[in-house]
């Protein structure tokens, strides 16, 4: 290094702090990506012979346009936040947990077992016990691929997909066997389900408090979801485990040479991911149905992957991504009522949003990185580290993960 050498650095007094630059850059990228997605969407709407402005307005009216709509949006967002957080936690450690789907199914079973066996407990004890029951169920299911990965190197994508299949069968078995309902009136036709949970064990309807229709099934679980996002943020950014996880995820060799146990870190991440996944189904069984149904909503785990991407694996970003997803899902209903545009348009729009967000974020990220690289100003960085162009290769977890977006999106139901 040149002792006094700065390659003509202009240490600008106006230099903005890096975080502000990053924030502004990301917000601009976000706006740009929304604009592009809506524009392409508008072209599609025109192709259907409808007026884009009216279609977008009907989506807005159905979601954010009324208190009821907002209630629906938050209720839809609740499980998606948990699901996306579960995906993102593993992602930070360089792993892809496709198994949130199976983990939350098993969690619904364990939660139901707690509900029905501890129905004598008062609500303030029962509900936490049920939530913990769900989290433990998710952890148990996540521990299998976690241990297999650490001990045998089995790839988590393969094992979690297999665990998903098993979980689906497990729900059917539980509802036909140990959890089979016996509380239905004689002769009544009832869908396959468990017994109805005690009232004290439900998450309660928040609708009355905010003037939202009970049909939205808005519950305080949304606050739990937001709380979980904050906890995950703290975990990743402010704790040793999160620090080690990020090191393992970005540079396993350096982490290992720094004394970090890769296996132990990854297993812990998988367990945390499983615990978060365990909360995905709670909105359904504690707020919506009040029992474990067979006709549960499928695909929340896969949608979580899409939401995690939309939120750029940032816990706070995930909250907003899940809300956006909720808005679009509500819009689906509106489309059917008010226009000729098929409901699949919403799925296309969701896909477009992920694509534009991921792409513009990547572009913005590289621009900012290149800027800061050059701004860092000291000699060397231009030569020594790879030029921005070269780092554009399809590497790193972000990119590899992005390819999996499409199938995840298709499975959305």
């Amino acid at each position, binding site marked *: *290094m*040149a*002792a*006094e*050498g*700065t*390659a*003509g*650095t*202009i*240490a*600008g007094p106006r*230099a903005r702090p*890096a*975080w502000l630059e990053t924030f502004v850059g990301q917000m601009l990228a976000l706006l740009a990506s929304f604009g592009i997605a809506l524009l392409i969407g508008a072209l599609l709407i025109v192709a259907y012979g409808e007026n884009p402005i009216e279609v977008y307005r009907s989506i807005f009216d159905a979601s954010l346009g009324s208190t009821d709509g907002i209630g629906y949006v938050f209720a839809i967002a609740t499980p998606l936040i948990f699901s996306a957080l579960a995906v993102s936690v593993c992602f930070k450690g360089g792993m892809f947990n496709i198994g949130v789907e199976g983990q939350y199914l098993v969690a619904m079973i364990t939660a139901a077992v707690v509900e029905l066996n501890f129905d004598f407990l008062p609500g303030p004890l029962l509900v936490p016990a049920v939530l913990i029951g769900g989290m433990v169920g998710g952890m148990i299911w996540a521990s299998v691929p976690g241990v297999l990965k650490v001990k045998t190197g089995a790839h988590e994508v393969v094992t979690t997909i297999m665990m998903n299949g098993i979980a689906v069968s497990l729900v059917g078995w539980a509802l036909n066997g140990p959890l089979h309902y016996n509380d239905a009136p004689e002769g009544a036709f009832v869908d396959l389900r468990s017994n109805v949970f005690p009232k004290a064990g439900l998450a309660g309807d928040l609708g009355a408090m905010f003037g939202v229709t009970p049909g939205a099934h808005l519950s305080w679980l949304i606050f739990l979801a937001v709380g979980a996002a904050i906890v995950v943020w703290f975990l990743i950014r*402010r*704790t*040793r*485990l999160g*620090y*080690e996880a*990020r*090191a393992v995820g*970005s*540079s396993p*060799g*350096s*982490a*290992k*040479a*720094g*004394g*970090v*146990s890769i296996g132990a870190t990854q297993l812990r991440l998988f367990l945390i991911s499983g615990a978060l996944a365990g909360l995905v189904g709670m909105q359904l069984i504690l707020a919506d149905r009040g029992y474990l149904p067979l006709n549960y909503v499928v695909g929340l785990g896969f949608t979580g992957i899409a939401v995690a991407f939309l939120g750029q694996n940032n816990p706070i970003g995930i909250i907003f991504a899940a809300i956006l997803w909720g808005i679009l899902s509500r819009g689906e209903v509106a489309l059917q009522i008010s226009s000729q545009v098929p409901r699949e348009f919403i799925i296309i729009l969701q896909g477009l949003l992920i694509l534009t967000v991921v792409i513009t974020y990547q572009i913005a990220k590289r621009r900012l*990185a290149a*800027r*800061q*690289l*050059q*701004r*860092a*100003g*000291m*000699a*060397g*960085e*231009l*030569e*020594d*580290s*790879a*030029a921005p*162009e*070269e780092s554009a290769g399809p590497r790193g977890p972000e990119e590899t993960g992005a390819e999996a977006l499409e199938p995840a999106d298709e499975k959305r139901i």
Partner: protein
Amino acid sequence: MTGGDGAGGSATPPLVVLEGITKRFPGVLANDEVNLELRAGEVHALIGENGAGKSTLMRVLYGMYPADGGRILVRGNEIKISSPRDAIANGIGMVHQHFVLVDPFTVTENIILGEEGGERLDMDSAQQRVAELAESYAFRVDPGAVVEDLSVGEEQRVEILKALYRGVEILILDEPTAVLTPSETKDLFGNLRKLREAGRTIVFISHKLDEVMEIADRITVLRRGRVVGETVPSETSKAKLAEMMVGRPVLFRLEKPKVQIGDPVLRVEDLTGEGKLNGISLEVRAGEILGVAGVEGNGQRELAESLIGLRTPEGGTIELEGAAIAGRPVFDIRNAGVGYIPEDRHEQGLVLNMSLWENAVLGRQDDADFSGTLGVLFIRKIKDLAARLVKLFDIRARTVDVSASTLSGGNQQKLILARELETDPKLLIAAQPTRGLDVGAIEFVWKEILDQKAAGRGVLLISAELDEIYALSDRIVTLYEGKITGEFPPDAPPEQVGIGMLGRAPEEAA
């Protein structure tokens, strides 16, 4: 031509002229009105410290960056180069430090990729053409071999052939020897001489002065984006070039501090593992630097990784001040007082996309100073640590929040050194500690290693650079095929050490 002294008067008109090239990045003036002439059939060395603007200048010529000012003339005509495709069309090719090859493809498939010529692919004749091309410049490479099976040196030959296949007249090589072993470097130089005989022009970007003196016909020195001089090897010396590059005299030999050699810090007995270590025994004492010389790939990496705990040896013992550490986890070995400078700082040293402060604490995140019992990081304290290290080691960075990838190679290595030495380790394992660094940074790293000795600590220095071994070591051992083949005093003639590096015992050598 600025600074064009003694460039050897010649009537041949220059093949390429760069005139007043200026390239600005936000906040950095990477090239400041640079003038450069390339003549047909010469090896033109472009030297300078990291960040001097060498690669930037050549990337401008290769069309990767648009210049902010100046013009480019090829064979007397001003041309506009706005993409590498334009550059290749004008006979200019570049081989980067990081290769861009398709691993599962064969050598031929890689070379013809994008130049297949027609819809029907005649692989046999393509292979024939590639073989002829390789032969004409004495490139040892099998056109049918699959790239993922090739060594780094062979991959580089494929990259060069790729450029030649496209009819390139002017070949830019960006630090080509940084990734090569000494013998591969020799091969490369042989190829370059053949190319020069055939009238091709080669731009050789480097900061290894020995190599520049050996291969270059003319040398242009850049410093801070400007040309500070142009010369020919016969009229200059390594020391003069280094001074031009750095802007001050550089010491190639540092004073070794006189220290009382103490008890053994590290004792390795009959270490074996993975077929790469075949019974290594050595000893490092307090206040001593033991240099392990050897051609790369003879077990250096395995030795270093076994000592720090990244590998579990199959047999033998490793004792740190009498306590057995073989097979212990990295974490324990570090805590027992071992510092580690890995040979690959990106793979094993730094987490590039994490910040400087996060890298500064890597390995010590469990310290009570830096995180609490619940695992919450004390970020304030870690940043203080990082700020202290940045100051102490003169690491050039805007703040401790910038990511490690924004640091230059020399500053990255300083960061690793700072981190590893901060804990006052009893033993420092330094594997190829100056690889890829420029002269100024090498001097810095050497001084720090000698300071360790002065402080009475043990250092195991593993290096493929014999110069480095000689500059620092109190004793030299040679490593060949996983065995120690000889021990030498620091004043042993290099030829003897060289024989040890080739696997023969010194007695036989004598």
